[in-house]
């Protein structure tokens, strides 16, 4: 990570964290993507002046023990905006961020509990009027107030983007794994509580929530008119309808045909 001299001094980073949920046991834990957001924040802060430039922020219950597992990554404190369970987290977060004005806000892509809609970074960006960069894998450099960011694309690809500070980014699973959480520091860390006014999320209170049902598998319905067609559909090997076969052609022509197809499909970069 490269930072130039004047950004490294006063680069303020906020990582937003939530309470994760283990996929099989359902226990509260450090969320995968939020842990990565903290890790990226720590790396950025350590490249600059030091850890004190990173604020790890949670809106919710400060008694939740899973928050301590973030603190165990080497944080002195975790800031918690105390909220009731049914409260909407976006407006108190916006208020906090307006007051403290960081340079970079890092979040996960989707929370592991609750609605998990992934809307938080977008709503914050809309309210603050900042750009949002979804699914980043790394921040490569920050020079003269412009950050170069690597975005994770499907199939292991990466895209480079530049964006002017301040911005919000959600951190993808492709980012560096979070460091191990140590029990001692986790217990010693300070939970800085803040009170904030909040509104109850009334829309959500009307929803009903149940454990996920298994989704029905899609059936292959054959709409054939005759018995012979149905029989063919049931017994035929899953084969393509027969492609082009280049036989008795020169090697050059054959290679050219393959090359053209690769070019047309856009896999040659």
């Amino acid at each position, binding site marked *: 990570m490269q930072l130039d001299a004047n950004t490294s001094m006063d680069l303020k980073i906020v990582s937003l964290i939530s309470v994760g*949920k283990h*996929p099989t046991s359902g226990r509260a834990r450090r969320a995968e993507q939020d842990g990565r957001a903290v890790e990226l924040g720590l790396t950025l802060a350590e490249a600059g002046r030091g850890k004190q430039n990173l604020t790890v922020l949670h809106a919710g219950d400060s008694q939740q023990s899973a928050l301590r597992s973030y603190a165990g990554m080497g944080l002195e404190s975790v800031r918690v905006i105390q909220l009731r369970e049914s409260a909407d987290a976006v407006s108190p977060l916006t208020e906090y961020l307006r007051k403290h004005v960081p340079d970079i806000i890092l979040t996960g892509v*989707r929370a*592991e*509990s609750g*609605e*998990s*809609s*992934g*809307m938080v970074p*977008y709503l914050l960006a*809309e309210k603050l009027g900042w750009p949002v960069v*979804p699914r980043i894998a790394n921040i490569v450099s920050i020079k003269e107030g412009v950050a*170069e960011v*690597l*975005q994770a*694309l*499907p*199939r*292991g*690809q*990466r*895209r*480079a*983007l*530049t*964006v*002017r500070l301040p*911005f919000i980014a959600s951190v993808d699973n492709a980012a560096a794994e979070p460091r191990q959480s140590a029990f001692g520091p986790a217990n010693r860390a300070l939970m800085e509580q803040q009170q904030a006014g909040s509104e109850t999320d009334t*829309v959500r209170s009307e*929803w009903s*929530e*149940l454990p*996920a*049902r298994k*989704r029905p598998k899609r059936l292959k319905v054959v709409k054939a008119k*005759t018995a*012979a067609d149905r029989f063919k559909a049931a017994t035929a090997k*899953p*084969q*393509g309808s027969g*492609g*082009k*076969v*280049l*036989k*008795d052609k020169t090697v050059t022509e*054959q*290679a050219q*045909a*393959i*090359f053209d*197809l*690769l*070019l047309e*499909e*856009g*896999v*040659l*970069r």
Partner: protein
Amino acid sequence: MSDSDYSHILRRDPRGERIARNRLHPLHSTVAVQVAETLGPSGLLRKNPHAVGFIGPNGIKRIDRLKGNAIAITGRRNAQSSQEVLLPLHQVSEPDFTIVVVPDMVGGRLTAHDKDILGQAHQLARSMEAGVAGESTGAGAVMAVVFGVSKEESFDKAGVDRLLLLDGAEYEGYCPEQQVAALEQVEARLKPEYWLFPDSVHGGTDLGSRLAARLGERPATQAWQMNTETTICRGASGSTDITRDTPRLLMLAQECANPVDETRHEALSIEWAPVQAVLPELHDLGQVAVDPNAIPLAEAEFILAAGNGITNWEQFHATAKALGATEGASRVAVDDGNMPRFRQVGASGTWVTARVYLAVGISGAIQHMQGIGQCDKVVTINTDAGCDMVKRADLSTIGDAEKVLDELINLVDTYRQQALHNQNGEKEGAKNAA
């Protein structure tokens, strides 16, 4: 009327039938079917198994037990069954409401996910047309908003009634801010009844979330079942089902509905005043070259796979490097120690999802084929034109792998050099202009 209009009608030839029935008719021998049993020159009775039976009107072989005296109906049903059926056209002349779908268009084509969502849009339109509590809302159209260059040819069969194609220069690359500006304009002019996005990593979620934040709508995400009243979506990273009222903006999961397959649609292009260019805050620098062999085999986009037909392994690795392809292998190549185990494709290896799969010297055993079931385009180089891989492939070249790969490396090298040359030329041109 053209000849083809009658081609499916079965025609009988009464005269021919009469001659075939009458063994004393002078022309009988020309009409009657060849007899399967003949006396050979040595006096032995010879049976010709190929001459047994005839092709019936349904194109199925029938065994003739009337010794060649059956009525031969010379129908041309075969031609008809291979003809493509023209689906009925669904027309909406003056839509009373619109449902907007913003497909991903990966590689410029509709994905299976996009088609499911278009199917869902039509389900919604039909149930709205049927009317809520007795009051009908009139006819609705499904509109697709497509950004960038499109290679898709079957918008009509996928269920697009109206097509808004925005392919200006400002929509090239990653430009979500510009796209949201365009969608906002659609919202202002058409006030669509529903906004449907694919909830996918290909950009659908990003765009949907941006628009939802901009419009102040609370979207349903990962919705997998919906009607005009309620929607079920997955919450808490897929471990809960949330049942809620249907919002105006939804991001739908895969297989939320069946794609359209019984109707054709107009896919009428819409005239649209150009959207004002927004000053983007995100600047796309293009994709970064990643080491193709660092990408997990299961999600690689382009795989070059080696089988038992490869003898020159150095050349194979060089080709993979030149093409920028991830390496794969058949089991034989792995068992012989030429490739590591984690590169094996197939039933006991990895199931791959590549868009392009280039199989070199692989015969296409069923265990291997299972692994490449989800690949879009399969290309093969093989010496045997009759093997199963050639039957599955979209493009097959019959020849020695070593020579073809050699030629392929040459072609790619010249292509790369030319691209580099052009780039340098452009840079110099820019310098000169400055």
